[in-house]
């Protein structure tokens, strides 16, 4: 079920009515059941049978954690086996659904190449919505129990709610059990201030999605493939890249904002997932601002497990590259995602080798800092071209057109399209100024005015509704 649908509005209003009546203290069992049932309906709205996959993933992790809790720390080997089983099931499900089509295709090609063409399934595998998110979320729980950070939870209902909680189920933020489970027993009442905060986040999210992302998508979807053509104008190609970088930010940050707002209204806090990423002064800083919950997940459960920066300088660079390539593959089985991840990995390694990741110690070398900001944002933009393109070759053709540097003046269509980037530019500029203390956070009255303007914008400037980009992951 998409947030931008009337079915969701009806579902959420029913849940919110329950919050105002039977769930005033949030911990009431009846309200918890309402959340579980509503989340199940939310998930099953897509392909009902896929709820079984989610149940399998959650069930395995729940049992693995219980077993880990009962196994003494001295029995290292047994504990490892339990963890391996849990990770194997989750990664197996993820791998099957993400890469089965690619595998079938590869088998068909290979068998045809050697003269023994094999019949492969004619029907492609439909990806269960949000599988990349909830498997990571569920796995983090088992790993934390294994590491001794968490004690296993004994109520399957509570654990299931952690995995299936509908505001963040489909596209994050990826919530850690360590931050979600302790919220469950807290009887958080709905106060006016909390209500306003939740509503503000929801309005910001819908504005980003329906006004910015969906309008930018109209241009990107219509014209992106023209930038693959030989001798497509550099200004036009660059414009498309900028439009897509705006679209993907507005789309994904919009979803995260709505998710956080909805959770607020239901008595839960979800972590921030985006923090004005296009003002990041370095690649490292970019990943501290973009899809924060995924990057911190990869850091804590993958990068650290690989040795992080504790082994050697070269190993650190290799670890960065491996983590980012796997981060790319997390999005799907395509060379374009691998290149996207590899570009970020290499750039992060170079940045670290040059000592530019912190921007500390540069002091008076403001020019270097600014130059590296441009380089970092340039890498991000180039990587987006790979991310959005149909194939590696198409992305190279796109970049070749940009490299031609034959910039023509943007036409009326391009200028009008860029108007939908303006709210994003303002958002980033405000965040930049706020971080430097140049402006103060908005007072409630100003927020109210801005929220009203955004609602007016949603009603009068929305474009054709499209699915959230990250639904496909």
């Amino acid at each position: 079920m998409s947030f931008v649908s009337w079915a969701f509005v009806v579902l959420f209003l029913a849940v919110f009515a329950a919050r105002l009546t039977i769930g005033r203290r949030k911990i009431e069992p009846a309200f918890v059941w309402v959340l579980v049932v509503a989340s199940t309906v939310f998930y099953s709205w897509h392909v009902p049978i896929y709820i079984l996959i989610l149940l399998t993933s959650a069930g395995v992790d729940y049992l693995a954690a219980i077993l880990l809790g009962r196994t003494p720390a001295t029995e290292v080997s047994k504990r490892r086996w339990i963890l391996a089983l849990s990770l194997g099931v989750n990664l197996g499900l993820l791998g099957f659904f993400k890469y089965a089509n690619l595998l079938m295709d590869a088998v068909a090609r290979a068998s045809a190449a050697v003269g023994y063409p094999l019949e492969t399934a004619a029907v492609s595998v439909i990806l269960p919505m949000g599988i990349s998110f909830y498997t990571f979320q569920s796995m983090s729980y088992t790993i934390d129990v294994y590491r001794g950070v968490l004690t296993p939870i004994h109520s399957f209902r509570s654990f299931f709610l952690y995995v299936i909680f509908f505001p963040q189920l489909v596209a994050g933020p990826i919530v850690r059990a360590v931050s979600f489970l302790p919220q469950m027993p807290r009887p958080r009442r709905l106060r006016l201030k909390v209500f306003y905060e939740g509503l503000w986040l929801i309005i910001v999210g819908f504005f980003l999605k329906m006004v910015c992302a969906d309008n930018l998508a109209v241009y990107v979807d219509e014209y992106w493939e023209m930038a693959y053509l030989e001798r497509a104008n550099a200004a036009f190609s660059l414009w498309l890249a900028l439009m897509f970088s705006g679209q993907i930010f507005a789309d994904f940050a919009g979803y995260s904002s709505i998710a956080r707002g909805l959770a607020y209204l239901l008595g839960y806090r979800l972590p921030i997932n985006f923090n004005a990423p296009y003002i990041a002064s370095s690649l490292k800083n970019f990943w501290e601002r973009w899809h924060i919950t995924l990057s911190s997940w990869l850091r804590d459960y993958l990068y650290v497990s690989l040795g992080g920066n504790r082994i050697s300088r070269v190993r650190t660079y290799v670890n960065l590259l491996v983590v980012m390539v796997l981060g790319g593959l997390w999005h799907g089985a395509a060379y374009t995602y691998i290149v996207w991840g590899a570009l970020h990995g290499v750039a992060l390694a170079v940045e670290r080798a040059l000592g530019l990741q912190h921007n500390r110690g540069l002091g008076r070398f403001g020019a270097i800092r600014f130059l590296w900001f441009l380089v970092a944002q340039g890498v991000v933009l180039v990587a987006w071209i790979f991310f959005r393109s149909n194939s590696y070759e198409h992305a190279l053709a796109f970049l070749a057109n940009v490299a031609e540097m034959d910039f023509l003046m943007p036409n009326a269509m391009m200028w009008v399209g860029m108007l939908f980037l303006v709210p994003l530019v303002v958002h980033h500029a405000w965040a930049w100024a706020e971080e430097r203390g140049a402006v103060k956070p908005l007072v409630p009255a100003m927020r109210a005015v801005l929220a009203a303007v955004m609602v007016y914008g949603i009603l009068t400037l929305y474009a054709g509704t499209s699915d959230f980009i990250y639904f496909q992951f």
Partner: protein
Amino acid sequence: MRTAIIFASTLAGLVALTYAAWATLPGLDRRVNHITQAQRPPGPDYYLAHDRGGHVDHHVLYHGTDAEAIDNLKQADILFLGTSRMMFALRSRVLAPWAQAYGLTYYALGFGFRDGDAFVLEMIRKHDLRPKLVVVNVDGFFGRALSTWAQRVVKDSPFGARKRFWEAEFGHESRRFVHRIIPNWIDLYGRPGFPFGNEFIAYRSRVDGVWSISPWPKPSMPAPSQDFGVEPVGPRIGDPARAFKAELDRRGSRMILTYVPTPEDAGGNPVALGELLGVPVVGMDVDGLTSHDGSHLSEESAAFWSRRLIQDLTPYLPPPGPR
């Protein structure tokens, strides 16, 4: 509470300001009325085919969620097939009296999203359609794989199809309500320099499957040229066209080709394709047509083209009565 009051009064102020501008500025008034008045089905026999978010008539007809529409489709003596260009070109006010005069029934089974033979074949087999005559607009029809939208439709369950239809219908109704008070500025002015950006709404007739376009923009350019030279028909088009005809032959249906002007590659010369398949080609060489977007015919031109089509098609009509 103060925050809520500020929010509500700001929003109310903006809405009131827009409404006042609408009420007082003559130009804006006309434009808004054009949008809001047009956004209603032409009659009770029509259902929503397309608003934002997809062509739901794919779902309705493939999954048979509208019994009356499916009954009429199954009973049709003549099927008209093609992409959205064919659906814009066929006009009920021309076709209905003509078909009635010859005691025949017809159904327009074209689809948006550039869906061609692959999706229509799925439809024909699923509903076991056996019309007497099938008129195909050759414009990119043959050799078309299922569009991404059609793939979704085929994979969806009947419940999924109903969900999509209700969602589209509810969204459409709420938009109609909201835009009686405040317009969507993009719908009102379009996207400058963006010829395909204007949204349109299509309702589909349960009786004859024809689209009713609303609002139908004014013609602003000539329809695409019909000069396709002497391009031969290659196997890319020829093979699927033969396969399609073979399927129709098995069902006892006669095939005839036609051509609605298109800015895209029509897939070879329609006359050459007709010769290859051994079928007549009608509705060719219609001059003076206009378009609003360079791709679809304007309302007047669509009626003009439909008249020419029926004039050419009449000699090939099957006799009325049971198949």
